[in-house]
């Protein structure tokens, strides 16, 4: 059975979760890993009090809602920040290594801010020694380069964010 202190800390954490309308909450301790899912609206009007949350997490026991072991580390390191709604993600159609330029030292195919057309080459994904040119599937402005040159990418991995015209 949990000791009195830990029980109080857990109660505080539960109150915090309720107050912020959080429906699901995972947590791990080392290398920190938090997952929060809200019950209704995307986020409470005032945002979460991050300071309070971090204080609670520091003291609370490892309250893992899902009884899962650490999730596998995907070989490619995927981007964590979600993309804005208006942006279109260009995803890799193949597994391989991402390169932003046609060859080492050459200028990148596209820069942030460039306008691109459908079919325009954005980058190369190299697979089995073959250089595959990846084309834009929408026309618009290149807003973000999500993958980094030399990074391994998997099928469906986001490479660029484009604000479609």
């Amino acid at each position: 059975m949990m000791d009195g202190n830990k029980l109080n800390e857990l109660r505080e954490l539960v109150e915090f979760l309720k107050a912020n309308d959080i429906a699901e909450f995972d947590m791990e301790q080392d290398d920190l890993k938090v997952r929060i899912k809200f019950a209704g609206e995307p986020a409470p009007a005032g945002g979460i009090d991050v300071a309070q949350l971090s204080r609670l997490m520091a003291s609370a026991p490892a309250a893992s809602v899902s009884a899962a072991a650490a999730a596998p580390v995907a070989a490619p390191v995927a981007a964590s920040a979600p993309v804005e709604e208006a942006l279109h993600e260009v995803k890799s159609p193949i597994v391989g290594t991402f390169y932003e330029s046609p060859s080492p030292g050459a200028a990148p195919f596209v820069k942030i801010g460039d306008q691109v057309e459908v079919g325009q080459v954005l980058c190369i994904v190299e697979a089995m020694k073959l250089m595959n040119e990846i084309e834009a599937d929408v026309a618009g402005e290149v807003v973000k380069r999500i993958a980094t040159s030399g990074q391994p990418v998997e099928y469906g991995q986001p490479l660029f964010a484009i604000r479609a015209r």
Partner: protein
Amino acid sequence: MFRKVLIANRGEIALRVISACREMGIRTVAVYSEADRNSLHVRFADEAICIGPPRSSESYLNVPAVISAAEIADVDAIHPGYGLLSENANFAEVCRASNIKFIGPPPEVTRMMGEKSTARQTMKKAKVPILPGSDGVIENEGEALEWAKSVGYPVILKAVAGGGGRGMRICRTAEELPGLFNQASTEAANAFGNGDLYMEKFIERPRHIEFQVLADEHGNVMSLGERECSIQRRHQKLIEEAPSLMVTPKLREELGKTIKKSLENIGYWNAGTIEFLMDEDGKIYFIEMNTRIQVEHCVTEMVTGIDLVKAQLRIAAGEKLNAIVTGPVEIRGHAIECRINAEHPEKFTPSAGKITAFNVPGGNGVRVDTAQYSEGVVPPYYDSMIAKLICHGKDREEAMNKMQRALSQFVVQGIHTTIPLHQKIFADEEFRSGKFDTKFMERFLDRQKDSQA
């Protein structure tokens, strides 16, 4: 030993290989389609790479995608599991060209044994008994009669160009042969544009018996005994056992020696299975070889105590057989496996969807190999097997009793499964007697229909 292995498969076999690797300190890389994002084989691998959309042809069978994943993950070897790319000689060649060790036989051997008539000729040369038949196409009724005389009735005429039962005729006497020959030929010509026929001895009530082999890369081969796989529906195995009640120790030893010689001749590597048909008189005939690990490898593991997947990894890493199997192979007790499919137990229609409850039985001598779990999803894109339930007892009677108990505790809700079908089979007298053949399921299903009428 390998530092890192990529498993080019999914479902329970991917998890099986990942587990063996983990126990051996080998780092694992899973590949998955978008439909398998939440699979256990993905979750329990050290690394995981998405290689394509749900369709197998665009993901698990997509050689460039699998090889590319192996390259970016910098693996030493690929284990192909069963099905999918496991017997694809092309894929094994690409692995070799890419400097990735393919865990299986050399591509040339896979290709040779994968071609049915070459395999037959190879085995015939090695004095392995093969199903008697004509040497290729039969030109006319006269030749047909002569072949039938030497092969012995009953015989079956088959279309060279096709399958699916068309252009096939079973013939039991010399009188009916010419007529049937013409019928089969015409039917074949209409169905496949080619009326050429060949002939094989026909076994009315065959038993399907297969032998497990292991071969290292230094020329050593050993047989690990047989499995009885006669309980099949439409050529799909449902239940497998080891040992077979029909194989005497003498037959096991003799056939083991013959098989060993034949595989030494062709330079076989790694795990494999040689399939035979046994006729009503107990005579045994080679039909084909599977150059990979099989679904039912578990029953052999239970009776011999040898971990076949670990053996595969060790063989591929260059170890010798006598370091892997250190003493004579002993068959202890009896093991039975039930393949649990996501299908309606009577209609056999596939049942994809979300599993809402999943209770797996345990206990002494009860093993479940599965990659499913509660809240897991059975996707519609792949084969329907979701679990293997294997029971081991001191004899067949005990194994059957354990199986009945285990089946009764195996709860799967949210989808249909063939668990109720297996329960009925294990209560069936013909099955329990052990006196069955490959036509068992037809008779059993007829009995079921009659009892419901």
